[in-house]
């Protein structure tokens, strides 16, 4: 067995062994306890409490009369709704081109949880953090409750009359929208456009993929996105495309990617992934070979890859400046060796780069296999050039009327400020936005749309794939679905539901022959949520000709750009900023930086050293970022893996009119985007200057909070060639000396050990599949009513997350070798490890609780009883995994937390709470319960039906949400279960100690023999031996 000799560190402080860090690392609660000792000579808080104690007790006893509570049944109970029994409806999440087919769980008619729709060929059961969190936006009390006319609350009749009369007199009308995936909406839009005399529909996307569609148009004659199939690629090369995190359809890609990354002894094969990028993205952190490159080089790197491949193919190569990019030749060789089973993608929005990418995939024969333009996807339809033209027209007074159809370009378009100034020049401006956001507050008439969970709709995300959205609740406010507004304004009598059905009847139903009855067809499609029409792929002609593009790239990209470059990216939590007002997403720690509630300039360690910035546990300085005539003040975050000479800044922050949660959080990076080249450019390579100011700032990171007290071998990893030789590669197998021999730690115990006669619940987590996306963390928050605590409390290290994704950077250097460590930190390898309560069978927390508030169940669960807990926190202190969280405050019904913890403070927000889970109060510890409410519900269903629990019918929220199936939940006593097979449990036993045959499976901190019920699988990277 070869031991892993890497050093893992969670932050630069840990790496450099900063004394302050070491001091804090030893303490669970680094901050001072909130007690005052009466320095002013007056009585302290504790004295006051002592004095008040008796009288309070006396007063509360006197007031013990129980309040009268009402039980109010329905007047007329709907047949399908039974109190306490959830209903599930298939629907669809789609905002702009961000798409997921979903299943909505409702309780007593309230949607409370969103899961992926297993039947969906696109996202399957997987979801993203944003999709999970979107249910909370339904209960946002800042959604508009009525139509607005000139900033005043109005009614629909007035608004409709105004819209009709004003539009009739407006002249040239433009309709601005984000990508619309819905064929019926497009039809309604065009019907509306026709009735007002031919309005033009202009589509843009906040995070544009115009480069790809434009390139596809040039190469193949159709402005569409291809369908990517990462699962069929043995070699994946990505130039800055964060396809696992934020690029186009990340849930789908993550799902595909994980299929190619799952390995076992029977199938020790996995895809190899090269990433060339400037910022350390989620995708880059999963790559086998990651090369940080400057944005100014990226085009040339693509070109030199083309040239290398062209040389092998015997095709003509293009003139290009030579660039030195590590691993590029290796990538070329491997791509060539896997022709037709590889994929090359780029996140660039430059059409020229994308044309070369097309040419590369043509050269490799990937076109039609892994990059399929014959089955086009429609996730992005935005046309940057048209949108630029529109802004120019608007400001020139050439636009008479404008309708913003559920989009917010004032905030999220590069020329937002210009656009805002121009809106007043139009005779009539209308928005259908559902909040008074940056755009809605600039227009005359606002016709607020329903929330998507209140709406009917259809979607066509890909050729041949359809899905439906159905309302899961009646509209909460006096809003009207935007499509219905269009129909009304077009003078149609029909409502949108009828319109939708009619459209399906005449198109999709008419083109199929399986079912002859439309109602049956409709019901079936609605029940499934998705429908595939198995249509023939369109034929595409031509092979991409990249000569013109190559010439353009040679002109615009430089191999030796000395200037600082700004690469603008999107974070997986906040995305393009549409959902910025969602506290669950704001508090979700970014997978890479582990920061919450902020965006920041990511800089390399080298830059920090040169500029004298020392970042310590989130404490940093602000910098002045200047691009041309625009400048903003933004905090700086030192980010290992950041390409030297580049800095990164995330979109989606700096909202001014999003609502109470997001307003004023971070800075707006949209206004820094460059659209001078005809497309929205996210890479600013010229005119960027950064000047560190003396302003101190604290970024609320969860990064260095929970440490393992210097104990290593938490992360166990290896590389594929070694795994092939020895399946135990990378495993740390501690042995303990006992009576003349070395034995496994589990053979030595003070305890007799539990026996689990019925169930033995456990989790198996494959670190090879886990991409760190964080969907599980939000799913857990929704399912278990986990409180949001706000930025200050995160700074105080009091975040409440039950499951966190630990992110470890690794380095090959020795611990003592500080210079070596510093070099490694420029491009570290990254490991993600989901960490939740390990449900130890020899639980250290259980033995120290003075009131037995945490106990072990007969099914292997470590139970936490809130009403018994008195808050000594001994358990948290004794937990080797630091997964127990303490309620320092009453986060519910507390005005101090009302703007961050909205799900537990106002009446509307509370509707999202899971009624089966207690909302915890101040002074108690809480932690992962392995979704015991779901276990209990599943068991009860089985008992009622007088049968055994079937594997898979009970699952935890995290496992359900995971798009890559990295988390497997199940009963380890059930020989037929997936977890039993995954772990290859040696023999059927009722004992809590299960011996497993799976070589990769290990317990974190096995040597302390707390015997967890959570197993991890070693991470295997597909690297060659010489380079590991």
């Amino acid at each position, binding site marked *: 067995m070869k031991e892993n000799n890497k050093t893992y560190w969670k932050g630069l402080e840990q790496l450099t062994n900063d004394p302050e860090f070491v001091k804090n690392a030893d303490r669970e609660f680094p901050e001072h306890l909130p007690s005052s000792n009466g320095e002013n000579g007056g009585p302290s808080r504790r004295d006051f409490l002592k004095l008040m104690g008796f009288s309070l007790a006396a007063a509360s*006893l006197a007031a*013990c009369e*129980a309040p*009268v*509570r*009402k*039980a*109010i*049944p*329905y*007047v*007329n*109970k709907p047949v399908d709704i*039974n*109190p*306490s*029994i959830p209903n599930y409806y298939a629907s669809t999440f789609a905002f702009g081109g961000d798409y997921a087919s979903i299943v909505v769980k409702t309780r007593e008619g309230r949607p409370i949880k969103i899961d992926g729709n297993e039947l969906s060929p696109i996202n399957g059961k997987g979801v993203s953090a944003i999709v999970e969190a979107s249910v909370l936006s339904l209960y946002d009390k800042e959604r508009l409750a009525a139509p607005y006319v000139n900033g005043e609350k109005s009614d629909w009749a007035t608004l409709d009359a105004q819209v009709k009369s004003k539009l009739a007199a407006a002249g040239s009308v433009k309709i601005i929208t984000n990508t619309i995936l819905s064929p019926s909406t497009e039809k309604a839009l065009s019907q509306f456009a026709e009735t007002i005399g031919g309005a033009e529909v202009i589509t843009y996307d906040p995070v544009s993929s115009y480069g790809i569609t434009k390139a596809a148009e040039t190469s193949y004659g159709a402005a569409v996105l291809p369908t990517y199939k990462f699962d069929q690629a043995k070699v994946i090369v990505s130039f800055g495309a964060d396809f696992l995190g934020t690029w186009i359809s990340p849930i789908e890609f993550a799902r595909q990617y994980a299929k190619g990354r799952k390995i076992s002894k029977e199938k020790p094969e996995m895809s190899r992934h090269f990433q060339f990028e400037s910022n350390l993205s989620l995708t880059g952190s999963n790559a086998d070979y990651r090369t940080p490159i400057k944005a100014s080089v990226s085009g040339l790197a693509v070109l030199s890859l083309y040239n290398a491949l062209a040389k092998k193919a015997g095709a003509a190569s293009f003139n290009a400046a030579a660039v030195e990019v590590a691993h590029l030749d290796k990538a070329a060789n491997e791509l060539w060796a896997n022709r037709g089973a590889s994929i090359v993608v780029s996140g660039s929005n430059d059409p020229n780069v994308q044309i070369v990418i097309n040419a590369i995939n043509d050269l490799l024969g990937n076109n039609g296999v892994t990059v399929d333009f014959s089955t086009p996807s429609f996730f992005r339809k935005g046309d940057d050039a048209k949108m630029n033209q529109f802004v120019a027209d608007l400001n020139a007074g050439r636009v008479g009327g404008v309708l913003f159809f559920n989009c917010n370009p004032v905030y999220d378009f590069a020329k937002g400020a210009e656009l805002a100034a121009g809106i007043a020049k139009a005779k009539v401006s209308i928005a259908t936005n559902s909040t008074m956001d940056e755009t809605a507050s600039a227009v005359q008439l606002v016709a607020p749309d329903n929330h998507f969970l209140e709406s009917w709709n259809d979607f066509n995300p890909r050729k041949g794939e359809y899905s439906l959205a159905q309302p899961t609740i009646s509209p909460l406010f006096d809003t009207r679905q935007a499509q219905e507004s269009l129909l009304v304004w077009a003078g149609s009598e029909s409502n949108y539901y009828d319109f939708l059905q009619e459209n399906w009847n005449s198109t999709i139903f008419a083109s199929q022959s399986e079912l002859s009855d439309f109602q049956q067809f409709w019901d079936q499609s609605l029940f499934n949520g998705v429908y595939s029409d198995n249509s023939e792929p369109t034929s595409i002609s031509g092979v991409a000709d990249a000569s013109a593009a190559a010439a353009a790239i040679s002109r615009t990209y430089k191999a030796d750009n000395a200037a600082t470059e700004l690469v603008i990216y999107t974070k997986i939590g906040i995305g393009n900023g549409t959902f910025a007002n969602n506290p669950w997403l704001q508090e979700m720690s970014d997978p890479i930086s582990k920061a919450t509630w902020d965006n920041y300039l990511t800089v390399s360690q080298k830059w920090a050293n040169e500029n004298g910035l020392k970042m310590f546990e989130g404490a940093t300085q602000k910098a002045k970022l200047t691009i041309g005539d625009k400048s903003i003040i933004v905090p700086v975050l030192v980010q290992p893996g950041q390409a030297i000479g580049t800095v990164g800044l995330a979109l989606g922050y700096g909202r001014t009119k999003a609502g109470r949660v997001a307003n004023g959080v971070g800075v707006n990076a949209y206004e820094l985007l460059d659209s001078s080249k005809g497309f929205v450019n996210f890479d600013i390579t010229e005119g960027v200057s950064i000047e560190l100011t003396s302003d101190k700032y604290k970024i609320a990171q969860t990064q260095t909070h929970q440490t393992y007290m210097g104990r290593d071998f938490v992360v166990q990893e290896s590389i594929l060639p070694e795994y092939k030789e020895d399946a135990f590669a990378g495993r740390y197998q501690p042995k303990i000396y006992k009576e003349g021999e070395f034995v496994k730690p589990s053979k030595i115990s003070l305890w007799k050990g539990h026996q689990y*006669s*019925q169930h033995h619940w456990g989790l198996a987590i494959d670190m090879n599949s886990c991409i760190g996306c964080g969907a599980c963390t939000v799913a857990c928050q929704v399912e278990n009513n986990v409180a949001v605590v706000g930025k200050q409390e995160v700074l105080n290290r009091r975040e409440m997350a039950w499951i966190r994704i630990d992110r470890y950077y690794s380095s090959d250097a020795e611990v003592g070798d500080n210079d070596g460590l510093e070099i490694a930190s420029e491009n570290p390898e990254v490991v993600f490890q989901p960490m939740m309560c390990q449900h130890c069978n020899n639980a250290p927390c259980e033995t120290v609780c003075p009131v037995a*508030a945490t*106990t072990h*169940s*007969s*099914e292997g*669960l470590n*139970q*936490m*009883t*809130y*009403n*018994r807990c008195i808050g000594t926190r001994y358990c948290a202190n004794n937990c080797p995994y630091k997964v127990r969280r303490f309620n320092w405050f009453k986060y519910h019904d507390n005005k101090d937390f009302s703007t961050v913890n909205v799900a537990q403070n106002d009446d509307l927000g509370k509707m999202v709470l899971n009624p*089966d*889970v*207690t909302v915890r109060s101040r002074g108690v510890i809480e932690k992962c*319960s392995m979704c*015991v*409410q779901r276990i*209990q519900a599943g*068991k*009860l269903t*089985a*008992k*009622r039906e*007088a*049968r*055994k*629990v079937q594997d898979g019918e009970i699952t935890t929220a995290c496992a359900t949400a995971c798009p890559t199936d990295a988390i497997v939940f199940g009963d380890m006593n059930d020989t037929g279960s997936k977890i039993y097979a995954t772990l290859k449990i040696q023999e059927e036993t*009722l004992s809590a100690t299960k011996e497993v045959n799976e070589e990769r499976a290990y317990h974190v901190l096995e040597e302390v023999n707390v015997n967890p019920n959570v197993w991890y699988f070693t991470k295997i990277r597909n690297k060659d031996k010489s380079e590991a």
Partner: protein
Amino acid sequence: MSIKRSLLSVPLRLSTLAMVFFLMLGAQAFGANPDVSDSEEAIAAGKSVFNANCKSCHKLDQKYTGPALRGVTDRRSIEWAKSFIKNSQAVIASGDPQANAIYKEFGNLAMPAHEFLSDTELESLLSYIEYGDKEAAVAEGGGEGSTEQTAGGSGVPNEYLTIILAVLVVVLLLILIVLGLIISVLTKYLNNQNLEEDDKEFINQKFDVKKILRSDAFVIIITALVIALVAKTAIDGLYSVGVQQGYQPKQPIAFSHQLHAGQYEIQCQYCHTGVEIGKSANIPSANICMNCHTHIQNVGGKEGVSSEIQKIYNAVDNNQPIEWVRIHNLPDLAYFNHSQHVAVGGIECQTCHGPIEEMEVVYQHSSLTMGWCIDCHRQTDINAVGNEYYDKLVQLHSDSKNSLKVKDIGGLECAKCHY
């Protein structure tokens, strides 16, 4: 007689009786219309039709909201019966004298139409009416007797206890008097003897109450007793905080469980629809009330609309839900699921809710404290028969000489109720 009715007791009781009942049916041919089938399937099918549609107003052998039904096929033709069941108003309107007579006899109370019943269903219904549940009444009495005996099996009834106590007190008093008399006689006798002064003094010494009152021992004992009493009262008081046993609030409608569940024997889950499928048993929605109260507008055969029933109509007309006062309030920190106890555990409603069928106004019968829950979990056997879920547990437990109780399978663990 208290009639225990619950989800499981009825089918259980009936299944044990069914054998006897059908055996008797075979032997005893009575004067029913020979066209009515007496097959077991027909009767069973008819019973479910009867329970679903007729039971709230009709009994087989007893006059009720509607007439006693048995023998209807003798009194009327089968065709008449069928058409009357399907749509009685139509038959009445057609001027049928028999129909009109019965309509008048029952206070012009219209029977709802049952057009949805198929001919087969109607025939099996008639089979049930003629042959079904003949001995039910007799057997029910017997069955109830036996359950009551087991319920009260531990000893002597309360009133006897009082009498015995009183007798004992009287006997004690008599003994005291006799003892007093003996003492005075003995004192007199001793005084008449020639005794020494010391002995005389001893014999005639006075009982000094003051001395005892002032003694340390007495003061300490009394103080301790007072402290103990105060402590006990305080602790009892604290334990009763939040315990609402006996809580009997006034409800917005004077709904009587005694009438509905007791007298009319409407099954609990007819109204409390969630009890076998979900966490909450469900307070019935107004539309469930209206299933019967569309037709039943008053009680006790009175004319017009009762003011209480009018409240249901108001609720429905104004689409304004009835705001019942919740009686059983578990704290939010405890999770309780009805279906676990009723559908899986086979617990009778009365076990926790008390004699609901005797309550004019419902009150909280049990304390609903955690101690009360736990006690039951300690004592109650698992209802594992025929439930595959428990097979493994039963098998593992088979060596034990005690029966498999809730506590044996984790029923005392925190996270069974607290999460």
